[in-house]
């Protein structure tokens, strides 16, 4: 078979293509995709714990989507309930308090316990108006949480968005919780969609890690 070699590629053409497609991100959109590719690479690295992967996730959301508070929750396979594994942007005492809370499945899905409005395929906004009293202590500024909503497009200090991480049977295995956007407004549609992509990636990473844990045990 006659083989051709890389030397047959015209060097000026090569330079043109390399320059046109240089991997250095040129705008915010490219920076975000680049960061997501990096995040997925991080999630594949078995030396990194799931906890540290989630820390990367919260940092990425903080950086690109301007939410000042981000939390990641996870299903606990031993205790068979849900807990907050990572928080970002919370006061230290609140973060510690928040991490002590355990949720059961009803808490996760009950419209009565945490009333919400669907804002995406796997995300919902939990407005302050429906928040149970016992959850109000988990906010940086409880007095601000009690204030009335000033405008419909305001993201109230007590509002938060949950984005679900889905398991093999569409069961919840974790979630992203986003609150306190820097501009104080409801997030854009694109922001919600990107958060759903990130939550979906997290779900895959969790499931793979669980499998690896099970395999290491057996």
């Amino acid at each position: 078979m006659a083989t051709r070699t890389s030397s047959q590629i015209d060097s000026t053409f090569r330079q043109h293509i390399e320059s046109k497609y240089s991997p250095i991100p040129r705008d915010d959109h490219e920076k975000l995709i680049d960061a997501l590719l990096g995040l997925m690479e991080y999630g594949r690295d078995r030396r990194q714990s799931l906890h540290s992967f989630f820390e990367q996730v919260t940092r990425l959301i903080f950086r690109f989507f301007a939410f000042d508070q981000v939390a990641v929750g996870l299903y606990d396979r031993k205790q068979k309930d849900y807990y907050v594994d990572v928080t970002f942007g919370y006061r230290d005492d609140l973060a510690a308090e928040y991490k002590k809370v355990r949720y059961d499945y009803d808490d996760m899905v009950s419209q009565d316990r945490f009333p919400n409005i669907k804002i995406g395929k796997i995300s919902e906004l939990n407005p302050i108006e429906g928040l149970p009293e016992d959850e109000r202590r988990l906010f940086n500024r409880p007095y601000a949480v009690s204030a009335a909503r000033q405008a419909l497009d305001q993201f109230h200090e007590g509002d938060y968005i949950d984005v679900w991480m889905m398991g093999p049977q569409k069961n919840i295995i974790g979630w992203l919780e986003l609150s306190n956007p820097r501009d104080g407004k409801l997030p854009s549609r694109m922001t919600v969609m990107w958060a759903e992509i990130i939550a979906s990636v997290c779900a895959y990473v969790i499931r793979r890690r669980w499998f690896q844990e099970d395999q290491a045990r057996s």
Partner: protein
Amino acid sequence: MGKEAITPEFRRLLETMYSPVPKDDNERILNNFIDLMALGSDRRQPLKAVFEQVARLVFRQFGFSEVAIGLKVKKEDIWKYEVAFGYTKDVEAKLFRTRYDRDDMYSQERFPNIKTGRLSELNVAEGLPLIETDKYDRPYRWHAKRTSFEEFLPGDFLDVWMLDEKKEIIGWIEVSGPKDKLQPPRSTLRWIELLASLCAEIVMLRWAEEEPGGRKAGLAIPGTAPMSTQ
């Protein structure tokens, strides 16, 4: 407190603002990616069906008339096409018969290429091994001379890699025949790189689940989610 405390005006605003109908191309792409991740997560869907969805998405959204998706044979050094979209039956049959080895996948000499991103490279007609030239719908044209650097010749193709934990190639998306016959914009390549990386997540999870005990992981969780992802 309670759901009745949410005013109907606020609920209506949110439902309108976040209506599920995509409003532009970027939303449509992200929407498709979210659906794809849900499809890939559904164990009842074979990987081939997931890849067919990917090929259709690339064809429809990014303006390539030929899309092929290849996969590594698990635990073997063989790579082969799983899905081909937009090729003639004859070419498609040739693609499905083709097997690549490690040298084919990694050697610059075998398939000379130019890196176009973190996960992608342009394989140019000028460097294509002669044995590969029959894998084109119009092979008589593949000798065409490049008259402009922006021209995407018959014989040019872009490979976008799916990499695993060890950065080994576990699959790839191959695109050619852009409808405008031009090198695609940067944004198209970046989107397809993200898509390939999402596909890598799907493949890795599927492979993990094929291992003994793999299907049990994550099953012992109560209930189902409150909302459909489809």
